[in-house]
């Protein structure tokens, strides 16, 4: 028997808010988490603005033991542990006992690359012939699965503990992977999410590709312009989002609060064929992914009331909106509400999908559609497809029943997940 799957916990460590309270407030008010980065200026970056969670060492100390803090130099790991631990707590769950793991709970927590700063530290030591000085922490902070390993150890998870990696699709893919595992009865609960390091070594490659905006170094909060006619590239971001997925049965048994049901989803790839490439999506595969997500969720196009897009603020946003329009066979006033949170978060790369899934799900709790920031000057191609009223620039009150969230990534990979409220 297939199990129904629900979201019972959320955690967030984002540029525009650490913790659900600040994060929600930022989304509601449209306050930006993007700031000028002196470090990037000093290193001659074209784009000198970015999204980076603000954390004090005092705050970080609450999540790590003194031993874990020794030599800790992996920002994504810090973000992921904060978001993951918070989601677990938010779900009302506790850590496993000392002597036995929690066999029913697992971790699927993705990343693109982990511990870049730690790796740089290690490279310098190795090149200086000082390999023995690496100590025991270089491996665990730089292995991709470091994040799921840390979380699995903190919580005492005895089910699958793994890290997925599919570029900017990672977080949304993780939600679907967790859904599949719970649905098939292999786990009762999965902590899923994703994280991404911050800093010049992660962002440099994108700056070199000239896909980051360069004209907003003096006006950081206006730099990320999803859906806009003046969009000129994505603002690099970082952070982590986390969701506790759980079987409906388990959630009910322990009287947990339920944010939403995960109705289903789809993951596919355009194969870097038919217009798709390493860096650009094959549109027919994007449409197929959206349609498969509807089918797997047992709903129809008309049921979608809101979309949270990938919408990174490059020149490709109109293509994404066209793909949604063609896949759903809806346009103009009939188009669902659509938003992008990247206007205030930037593009969190591997963390984007999970941070945005958390935000998308919070819309059910708040009874709102969070506004699109910096999208006032809508791209003319988008305005031809979608009525302006469907792209709110300020947060509006709207109790949606069903929200679609998609993420697309380098490698021509796609993921689309459907959330539905259990409230009437």
């Amino acid at each position, binding site marked *: 028997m297939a199990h129904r799957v629900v979201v019972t916990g959320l955690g967030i460590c984002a540029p525009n808010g650490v913790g659900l309270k600040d994060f929600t407030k930022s989304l509601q008010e449209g306050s930006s988490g993007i700031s000028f980065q002196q470090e990037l200026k000093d290193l001659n970056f074209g784009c000198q603005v970015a999204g980076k969670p603000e954390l004090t060492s005092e705050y970080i100390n609450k999540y790590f033991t*003194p*031993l874990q803090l*020794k030599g800790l130099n992996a920002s994504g790991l810090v973000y992921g542990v904060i978001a993951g631990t918070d989601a677990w707590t938010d779900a009302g769950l506790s850590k496993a006992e000392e002597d036995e793991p929690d066999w029913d709970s697992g971790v699927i927590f993705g990343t693109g690359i982990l511990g870049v700063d730690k790796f740089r530290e290690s490279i310098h030591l190795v090149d200086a012939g000082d390999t*023995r*000085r690496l*100590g*025991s*922490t270089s491996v665990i902070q730089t292995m991709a699965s470091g994040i799921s390993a840390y979380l699995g150890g903190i919580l005492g998870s005895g089910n699958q503990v793994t890290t997925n990696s599919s570029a900017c699709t990672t977080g949304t893919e993780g939600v679907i992977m967790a859904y599949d595992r719970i649905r098939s009865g292999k786990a009762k609960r999965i902590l899923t999410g994703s994280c991404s390091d911050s800093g010049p070594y992660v962002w440099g490659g994108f700056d070199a590709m000239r896909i980051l905006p360069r004209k907003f170094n003096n006006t950081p909060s206006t730099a990320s312009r999803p859906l806009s006619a003046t969009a000129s590239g994505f603002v690099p971001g970082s952070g982590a989002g986390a969701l506790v997925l759980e079987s409906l049965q388990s959630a009910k048994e322990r009287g947990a609060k339920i944010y939403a049901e995960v109705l289903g989803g789809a993951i596919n790839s355009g194969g870097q064929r038919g217009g798709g490439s390493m860096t650009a999506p094959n549109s027919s595969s994007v449409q197929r992914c959206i349609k498969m997500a509807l089918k797997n969720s047992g709903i129809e196009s008309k049921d979608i009331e809101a979309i949270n897009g990938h919408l990174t603020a490059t020149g490709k946003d109109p293509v994404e909106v066209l793909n949604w329009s063609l896949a759903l066979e809806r346009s103009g006033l009939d188009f669902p509400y659509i938003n992008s949170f990247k206007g205030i978060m930037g593009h969190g790369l591997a963390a984007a999908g999970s941070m945005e899934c958390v935000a998308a799900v919070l819309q059910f709790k708040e009874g709102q559609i969070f506004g699109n920031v910096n999208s006032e000057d809508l791209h003319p191609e988008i305005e031809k497809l979608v009525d302006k009223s469907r792209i709110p620039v300020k947060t509006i009150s709207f109790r949606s029943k069903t929200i679609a969230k998609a993420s697309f990534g380098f490698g021509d990979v796609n993921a689309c997940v459907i959330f539905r409220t259990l409230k009437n």
Partner: protein
Amino acid sequence: MKEENYYQQLKGIVKPYLPEDVTVDDISPDSHFINELNINSANLVDIVLDVEDAFEITLENDDMDQMQTVNDAMAIIDKKRRSK
């Protein structure tokens, strides 16, 4: 006096690596790092690095292999300090 100094310093170094159920008061000169203090063997390499930094010495692979107990560590530190 010097020995007592080394001992106190070493206890400070070892402290963060102790598992939750072992306290600094459990440390004695005869304590075996792994078998008695339950220190994760992976962390022994970190203790060695901390010892090197604190006492401004360099430990060779052989020294590391021989460093099984708190007393072993003190003897090695003393030897290295004297040959400096």
